[in-house]
């Protein structure tokens, strides 16, 4: 329960003073990126029966591994539950946390970490059984709601319940597995977490996914993204710009399939810059000029990652919505790679 927290505390007590700027060297030296992920959130991160990890959060780590180590496979996956995750990052157990984590002020300013950007714009929602005939969150008066501890969800639920005068009763569980089980056993009238999480849980855990409805109200803003330890600006910049490059690749039509061809003969100066055939942007990040090429080659651009893992054709069937490019009505807007 407290394992990671205690480990973090012990690490803080016993190691000498920490030095900044070492993460990249450490990753190269051990030949592996250590990435903290959600143990079971299909679409974002989950392992199959062979132990191969897949998902949107997983792909972000793969892209970074491809950039830094030239091999998307050189990642050590550390499954973390919600209450362990920050301690694991603080103590240096993982290099990066890519675990559907909401970017908030408290976390950004007091936990010794930096959020590197948003990889999925989400909002908190409710799931109920179809049998209950509930169609709006406003009908959940006095309802018991299953929540996982260690998330922003508990506070959002309380805020919403108070503002709407609903007096909902949270039942808080330590792990996502326990929360799922309690909800599907019928202990709670509703399940609350990020809407994408609800879709994932419904798809994976429900006997028949059609028996459960996700209510239309979204009660919060949940910008989910990776985070890295504070005090290492170099690695912070790499983690940030790999995601930006993936988004910009989508904007300029660079895909996993055509990246080699574009690298060979594209005349578009922006594409040339991203793929490192003209300017060397990699040097500024402490990398080589092919850094973005390797990331795109490994995972495809942001749009491809989205479609493959959570998009309308995947098992989760989530609409692109807010996560579309800015030029197509969404929020995905990357500063230029220039």
């Amino acid at each position, binding site marked *: *329960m*407290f394992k990671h927290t205690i480990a973090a505390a012990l690490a*803080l*007590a016993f190691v000498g003073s920490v030095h900044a700027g070492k993460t990249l060297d450490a990753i190269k030296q051990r030949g592996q990126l250590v990435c903290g992920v959600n143990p079971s959130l299909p679409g974002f991160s989950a392992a199959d029966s062979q132990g191969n990890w897949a998902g949107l959060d997983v792909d972000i780590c793969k892209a970074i591994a491809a950039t830094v180590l030239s091999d998307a496979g050189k990642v050590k996956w550390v499954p973390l539950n919600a*209450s362990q995750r920050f301690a694991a990052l*603080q103590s240096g157990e993982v290099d990066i946390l890519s675990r559907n984590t909401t970017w908030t002020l408290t976390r950004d300013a007091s*936990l010794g970490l930096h959020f590197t950007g948003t990889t999925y714009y989400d909002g908190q929602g409710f799931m109920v059984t179809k049998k209950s005939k509930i169609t709006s969150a406003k009908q959940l008066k006095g*309802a018991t709601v299953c929540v996982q501890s260690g998330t922003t969800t508990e506070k959002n639920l309380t805020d919403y*319940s108070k503002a709407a005068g609903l007096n909902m009763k*949270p039942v808080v569980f330590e792990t996502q597995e326990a929360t799922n089980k309690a909800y599907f056993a019928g202990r709670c009238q509703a399940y609350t977490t990020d809407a994408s999480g609800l879709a994932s849980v419904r798809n994976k855990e429900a006997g028949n996914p059609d028996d459960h409805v996700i209510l239309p109200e979204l009660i919060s803003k949940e910008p989910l993204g990776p985070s890295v330890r504070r005090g290492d600006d170099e690695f912070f910049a790499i983690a940030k710009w790999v995601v930006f490059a993936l988004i910009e690749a989508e904007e300029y039509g660079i895909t996993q399939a055509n990246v080699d061809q574009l690298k060979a003969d594209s005349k578009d100066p922006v594409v040339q810059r991203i793929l490192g055939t003209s300017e060397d942007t990699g040097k500024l990040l402490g990398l080589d000029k092919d850094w973005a090429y390797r990331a795109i080659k490994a995972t495809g651009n942001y749009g491809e990652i989205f479609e493959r893992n959570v998009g309308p054709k995947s098992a989760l069937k989530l609409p692109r919505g807010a996560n579309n490019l800015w030029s197509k009505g969404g929020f995905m807007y990357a500063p230029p790679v220039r």
Partner: protein
Amino acid sequence: MSAPPSKSSSFNWRSKAFRGVLYQVVVLALLVLAAAYLLHNTLDNMRVRGIKSGFDFITQPAGFAIGESVVPFDSAESYGKAFLVGLSNTFRVAILGILFATVLGTLVGVGRLSRNFLVRTLSGAYVDLVRNVPLLLQLFIWYFVLTEKLPPIEEALHPLPGLFFSKNGLQFPHPVWADGHLFTVAGFVVGLIGVWWWSRMSRVRFERTGKPTPFVLPAIGIVVLATLVGWLLGGAPAGLDSPEKTEINVVGGGAVTPEFLTVLIGLTVYTAAYIAEVVRAGIQSVPFGQHEASVSLGLGRGQELRLVQLPQALRVIIPPMTNQYLNLTKNSSLAVAVGYPDLVSISNTSLNQTGRAIECIALVMACYLTLSLLTSAGMNWYNRRSAIKER
């Protein structure tokens, strides 16, 4: 050889006493230095990594709701209050658990020594089964039974009027507080005083005439009667808050959640098995001659147990029983696994909202330490009271 050391020798390297003190001072100094080093290192590293620390969050509004509590809690109240609510939930389950486990454990412990084959075997089987399955698993099993096997709240079991039993827990009617109930409480207190008086009277009578006076039934009678009279004097307030069934819910009345029931049942059943062994060992520690003496005095089996064996066994039982009570209290921290908002659960939530991990864990440790020390202080007092007094 055995001449008393002179005063000046107390600063002599050859003096055993002086060296003894010196060693202790050195060890203590090293301990303090090590602790100071670790603390300094921790604070320094946290500062370098930009992790904020301090207990200032205690007074900040918590912002999260707590599903069930003895005292009402609002999300606008402070983290400190939230911790107190968690502590009160731990208290509630620990005190009730100790009470029930003691009763159940004593029954099973006595049952293991029964002359009845079935009672003896069943008691033995219970102890063997329950002691050898981890408590966490047992909690999961109870929670599974209470949430998976019971009907949903819309089809709640309704065994008695006003009583509802469903996945939502047990809902029951409870009296609405009215001023008249002050008399009821007063009547109850008068009843307790009456019982004390009755026990004195019967002892005096026993010492004078040698005839025993019945105690248990009259005592219950006195309390019930006095409470009833008080209630009637108070104008017999009959306001009752009964749970009512609505379309999708059962509202009103008192309620205990399946999470609370799970933890209570789990802790009771588990600890009772250990208490049973403590009680059995205690009874068996009473010499066989005491049994022969009771038989030759013509005492029945029940009288022998109550008057001869249990009072003597108690002296052996109390110290290990204290251990069991402490274990139960500490084991209640497993409640977090089934979603009961105990101290650990509240601390987990606070830890995640504030990021003050070290502070929250320190608080929890301090709470359990205080709780355990208080329990053992109480039991030590009781142990001294019931120990053989040398007069």
